[in-house]
């Protein structure tokens, strides 16, 4: 076969089949339907398989992107799945929610002259096919005596848990909510990432032997210190997320109808307030909704509000679309669905009616001045530009602070902003405790949290004296183990019919490590 060149590949990026905007604002079904087989084959043909592979470096977890696309192009879809799951256990999730335009696709060689290869869409195609076909890659796992706890079942915790389970550790994931999944469940709405997809991915983690303990508020039910001592964990990973939503301190923020995007999304997504009164959690959706902020969470809040029946939905942001932190695709989708964008607009105060519900928001127009510390041009108010926007619901989506619970209940060192102080590898001030994701960096993305979880997993393996390799290896590697790991070793072969929760017949070749 002749070498592909930029002239011989399909020139146009294969479009994603989508629900019509007019239809989809009336439902919570997924907007992007996903590539059909023929779409995937055409798009896979657009990859030049270039020697440089900038996409791999652009991926926070370093997926062998040309490798899996080559498999797709060769119609070896299970092979493609194998390639992806070597580095990323959640292709269906990441293919949907990663900001590919600023990662792999942003540096794609094809993108220098044409639109870049739709890597995210292909990844999702492979992940969804794996779900449909029931594929899961449960590798051979050599049991180790080590017990590892993960605090938080969001993307950072899931990624760390998977790696530690694959390394043979007994892994328990603690979650404060009644269902695992973290922000993937409560935050990202179903029309962008169906909760059913998250559940399938969590089941795959269970197949690796990972236990999920919900309804468990670590810090208050037991502390990090207790986990390392009386509970016998050899290492703990903290991935509790940013939480704690910010407000602006405007007059009227405690009026009825004023809430954080987190509250709106949690009620709607996790608690099913959209199905009220079939589900008990209420939501009093507004008819005229203003969402302050222009990040991905703001876009989710805007589009959820439309689907909850709002007639007017306004995005209020003090800078312009160019500075908006949301993915371009999300802003585009929101525009298609009828969201009105008020760029260069800043709220001043919220006005209430006699029942103490919000009735309007007073705003002023801005213009862009000199660049500020972030390098973005600072918005400056335009004198005399004040106006009132008639609204009955105001949603704040302007970011979050660090969740305070772990800091309140442990001796863990925090940074001045309240986030957990951790080094590049996720090691914290407490021996055996690692942290990663939003609780270390502040609000970021799903894939960055997963990357941090994986990085911490490598560090934990090194700390436990486990070789960091995907290969089968034997022998006890607990040279660096603490006295508690020796205890754990005694208790290790608890259930020999289901070692690590994996039925023996599913892993008939396994040698069981009996201490």
């Amino acid at each position, binding site marked *: 076969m002749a070498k592909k060149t930029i002239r011989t590949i399909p020139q146009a990026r294969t479009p994603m089949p989508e629900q019509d905007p007019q239809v989809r604002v009336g439902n919570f079904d997924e907007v992007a339907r996903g590539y059909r087989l023929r779409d995937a084959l055409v798009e896979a043909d657009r990859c030049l398989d270039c020697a440089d592979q900038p996409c791999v470096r652009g991926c926070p977890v370093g997926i062998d992107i040309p490798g899996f696309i080559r498999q797709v192009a060769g119609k070896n879809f299970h092979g493609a799945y194998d390639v992806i799951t070597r580095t990323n256990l959640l292709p269906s999730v990441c293919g949907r929610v990663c900001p590919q335009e600023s990662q792999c696709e942003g540096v794609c060689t094809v993108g220098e002259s044409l639109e870049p290869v739709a890597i995210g869409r292909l990844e999702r195609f492979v992940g969804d096919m794996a779900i449909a076909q029931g594929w899961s890659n449960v590798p051979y796992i050599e049991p180790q005596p080590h017990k590892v706890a993960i605090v938080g079942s969001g993307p950072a915790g899931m990624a760390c848990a998977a790696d530690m389970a694959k390394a043979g550790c007994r892994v328990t994931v603690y979650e*404060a*909510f*009644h269902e695992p999944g973290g922000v993937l469940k*409560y935050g990202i709405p179903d029309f962008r990432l169906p909760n059913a997809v998250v559940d399938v991915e969590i089941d795959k983690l269970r197949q690796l032997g990972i236990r999920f*303990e*919900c*309804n*468990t*508020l670590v810090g*208050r*039910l*037991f502390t990090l210190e207790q986990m390392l001592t009386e509970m016998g964990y050899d290492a703990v990973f903290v991935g509790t*997320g940013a*939480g*704690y*939503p910010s*407000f602006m*301190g405007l007059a009227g*923020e*405690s*009026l*009825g*109808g004023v*809430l*954080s995007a*987190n*509250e709106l999304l*949690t*009620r709607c997504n996790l*608690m*099913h307030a959209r199905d*009220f*009164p*079939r*589900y*008990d*959690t*209420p*939501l*009093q959706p507004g008819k005229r909704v203003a969402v302050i902020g222009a990040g991905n969470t703001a876009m989710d809040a805007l589009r959820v509000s439309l689907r909850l029946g709002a007639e007017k939905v306004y995005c209020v942001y003090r800078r312009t679309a160019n500075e908006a932190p949301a993915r371009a695709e999300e802003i585009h989708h929101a525009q298609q669905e009828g969201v009105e964008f008020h760029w260069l607009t800043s709220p001043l105060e919220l006005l209430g009616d006699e*029942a*103490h*519900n919000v009735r309007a928001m007073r705003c002023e127009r801005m213009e862009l001045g000199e660049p500020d510390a972030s390098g973005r041009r600072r918005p400056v108010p335009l004198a005399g530009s004040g106006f009132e926007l008639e609204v009955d619901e105001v949603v704040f989506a302007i970011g979050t602070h660090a*969740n*305070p*619970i772990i800091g*309140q209940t442990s001796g863990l060192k925090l940074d001045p902003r309240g986030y957990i102080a951790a080094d590049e590898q996720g090691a914290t001030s407490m021996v055996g405790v690692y942290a990663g994701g939003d609780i270390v960096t502040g609000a970021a993305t799903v894939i960055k949290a997963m990357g941090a979880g994986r990085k911490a997993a490598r560090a934990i393996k090194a700390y436990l004296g486990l070789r960091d390799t995907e290969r089968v290896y034997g022998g006890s590697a607990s040279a660096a183990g603490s006295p508690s790991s020796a205890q754990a070793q005694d208790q290790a072969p608890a259930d020999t019919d289901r070692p690590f929760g994996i039925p023996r017949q599913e892993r008939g070749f396994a040698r069981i490590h009996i201490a």
Partner: protein
Amino acid sequence: MSDFEIVTREDYSDVTFMLEVRHPQMARAAKPGQFVIVMAHAQGERIPLTIADFDRERGTITLVIQAVGKTTLEMQRDLRLGAHLHAMVGPMGVPSHLGTTSGTPRKVVCVGGGLGVAPIFPQARAHKEAGAYVIGVLGFRNRGLIFWEDKFRAVCDELIVCTDDGSAGIKGLVTAGILQAVDQHPDIDEVVAIGPPIMMKGCADTTRSLGIKTMVSLNPVMVDGTGMCGGCRVKVGESVKFACVDGPDFDGHEVDFDDLMMRLNRYKPAEKVSLLKMGEGCRMQGSPKA
């Protein structure tokens, strides 16, 4: 891991009932002033309930619930002995600060009204155990609604019961009880008040001019209870606090109760819809027999 089984149930009146839930791990961890969030069933909402008692030996958490909305009425109807809650997470919130700095016994008034009577109990007991002179002030609408009087007598040096109609104890609100205690004890260090916001507001207003430190326990609207939703934000002095992780205890003289009460009304219309639907469901279930 607990399966949240109900091991004891007692009904104190036709609205107030007690559930003792098995959760040994939480019983070990719980401290006075903390709360839990429960879900009665998979379609249920998450509601915060202050821990009314915990028994480390029995491994149980005690909740006292007033059946006032759809969720609590369903709990009253369905959560019999041996039933299970769908979820219970906790203990949440910062434990109450019992403030025995120098170790010298202090004089504390523990005020509980309505649904606040039960959660003030562990506070009274903890103060007693810390060596304080404890004056209990309990408020009920009438004699028939009184519960836990003996439990309180066991941990209080004095107990003042107040009823709205005067059918037991002194006639009047708990603020009358506070004033009676203040008249007899000029050296009260602290008042701790738990109950409906209007009652806590009254207590704080009563003690403000007397210069007695007054702690209140707030129970605003919450979803997760871990600081994530911000639904429970309250104005305390100049700042905005989240009751779930910054509280639930705050200085009563600093709390903006009017603001709190208005925020609590937000979901009243939806609660009515829920109740109405529940009523229809009951009627439909009942109709074939009728």
